[in-house]
């Protein structure tokens, strides 16, 4: 610890942009917490090269334009180059022009729709080949070939559903309906959708509903008397955090594909979950977005220790290729696209609101954001 608080060791400063208010605050708050937990761990063990890492945190309020403003403020007024943040794709797309023009480095810890590359972004959440492909195969094998697609009305759900539609059709399935609701949709907005679902009787509901309206979807489903055993909701974004918000009874039996669940059995994960709960409370679950937010800070720190510089052109090449023992297992920032090679898992919500892991990949799945090698077939090996 010597030197950490000495006057001549100015701290490293980094930016943090996760919403604490607005329609995606529930999940973004967990990403913020996991980011702060990782920073605390690093600082408790002496910082990086005897310098503490200090976060500058703003609340972008789940609004893309505010994300862009705060990204600019971090880079211009606070002279910060490394930013951890963004949940929705709309917020990421709002921040990218800023970090590209001013040469910052955005660390993005959320599953997204793929088909993107930026020299100024490190992607640590799964691309579609690391979650959608396995989810589609699982749902088709277990439940059937007729899919109904439902999503929030913005870029991520529309693009993810386009990919899911292709996967379903190319593998002999059928999409019998597709609908989009506002990110601010309430319980009553889902009622007509549930009516349609009862009429169409698909085998599977694939949902890319995100944020607070996730609760409304799952609760309306229960109210409509539908049965998860025969017509489950399959999702890429319903995590322990959303399940906690809606109540385990509303979510039980539904399925999510993710690289991480709190129930993953690794030593790193026991450590992560214990530290997280100690800091934020016993009933606060971890989740895939929080886990990515957590390990990306550690990867950043590992690279910073080597470069001793926050300059993007110096730091980024060192980040690429970095391996890390994350709670989900060993991960690696892939050099081709600066996306991360991650694990693929399928989980089903149990009666306590946790996920029972039903399937998992035997190793990390290489990130393939343009679906060049994992395009359309469902074969995973």
């Amino acid at each position, binding site marked *: 610890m010597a030197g950490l608080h000495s006057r001549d060791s100015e701290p490293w*400063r980094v930016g943090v942009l996760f919403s604490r208010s607005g329609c995606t605050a529930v999940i973004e708050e967990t990403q913020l917490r996991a980011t702060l937990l990782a920073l605390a761990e690093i600082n408790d063990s002496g910082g990086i090269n005897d310098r503490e890492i200090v976060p500058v945190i703003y609340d972008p309020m789940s609004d893309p334009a505010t994300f862009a403003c705060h990204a600019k403020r971090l880079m211009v007024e606070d002279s910060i180059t490394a930013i951890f943040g963004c949940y929705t794709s709309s917020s990421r797309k709002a921040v990218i022009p800023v970090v*590209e023009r001013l040469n910052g480095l955005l660390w993005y810890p959320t599953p997204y729709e793929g088909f993107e590359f930026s*020299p100024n972004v490190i992607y640590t959440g799964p691309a579609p080949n690391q979650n959608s492909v396995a989810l589609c195969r699982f749902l088709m094998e277990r439940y059937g070939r007729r899919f109904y697609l439902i999503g929030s009305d913005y870029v991520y759900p529309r693009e993810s559903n386009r990919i899911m539609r292709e996967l379903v059709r*190319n593998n002999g399935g059928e999409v019998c309906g597709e609908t989009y609701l506002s990110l601010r949709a309430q319980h009553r907005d889902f009622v007509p959708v549930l009516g349609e679902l009862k009429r169409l009787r698909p085998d599977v509901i694939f949902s890319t509903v995100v944020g607070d309206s996730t609760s409304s979807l799952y609760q309306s489903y229960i109210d409509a008397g539908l049965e998860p055993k025969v017509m489950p909701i399959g999702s890429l974004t319903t995590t322990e955090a959303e399940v906690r918000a809606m109540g385990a009874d509303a979510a039980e039996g539904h399925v999510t594909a993710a690289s991480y669940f709190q129930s993953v059995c690794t030593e790193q994960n026991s450590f992560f979950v214990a530290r997280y709960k100690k800091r934020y409370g016993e009933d606060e679950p971890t989740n895939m977005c929080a886990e990515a937010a957590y390990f990306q800070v550690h990867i950043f720190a590992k690279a910073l220790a080597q470069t001793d510089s926050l300059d993007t052109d110096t730091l980024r090449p060192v980040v690429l290729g970095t391996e890390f023992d994350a709670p989900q297992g060993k991960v690696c920032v892939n050099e081709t696209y600066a996306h991360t090679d991650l694990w693929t898992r399928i989980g089903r919500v149990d009666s306590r609101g946790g996920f029972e892991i039903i399937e998992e990949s035997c190793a990390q799945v290489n990130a393939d954001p343009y679906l060049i*090698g994992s*395009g359309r077939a469902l074969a995973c090996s």
Partner: protein
Amino acid sequence: MTSAERSLRAEFAKLDALVAVPRDDDGEFLVRELQRARARVRHVWPLPDRLPEDTDIIFCALEPGLPERIPWVPGEPKAALTVVVAPGAAPDLGLLVNSAPDAVLHRPITSNGVLVSLALARSHFTYDRRLRWRINKLDESLRGMRAVERAKEILMRTRQMCEEEAYRFIRGQAMRRRAPISVVAAAIVDSHDILS
């Protein structure tokens, strides 16, 4: 000094600068100011037919024929370019645009002018380079996707495979050869084009 400024100053200290302006007081002043910013400076004059490209930034007099002396094609710059404009006569705007500079430095040259044009030229040049890199990556991805689709069609047609078998075949080959799937796909397309 902000950390953004510190990092720019640190960048200046790593730069190789080429100065191609007359060896008069102004020219000597420019060389000294760049050296004061801790850049390594080479001074050439008269203007060579082809400016050297093994440098990070070029300060060059805006002279007739400048575009022909620049050693790269427009849009693919190898170094940042600042043109040095003389006072008096109206500048040749066509010449200016065709030289595609990242910044302009006006004579008589001042300390501030040198720093401003140095910072601006480097920032503009590196941004431009990042965007070109991103575009190349996108192009490469599109070509890769196209190659895989074509290779798959070929396998389906010539080997009576179904789509999924064709896919698995290409992926399997790529894994065995530890090569990117797009490279294997392109090889299949090429060999088919040669054989047929």
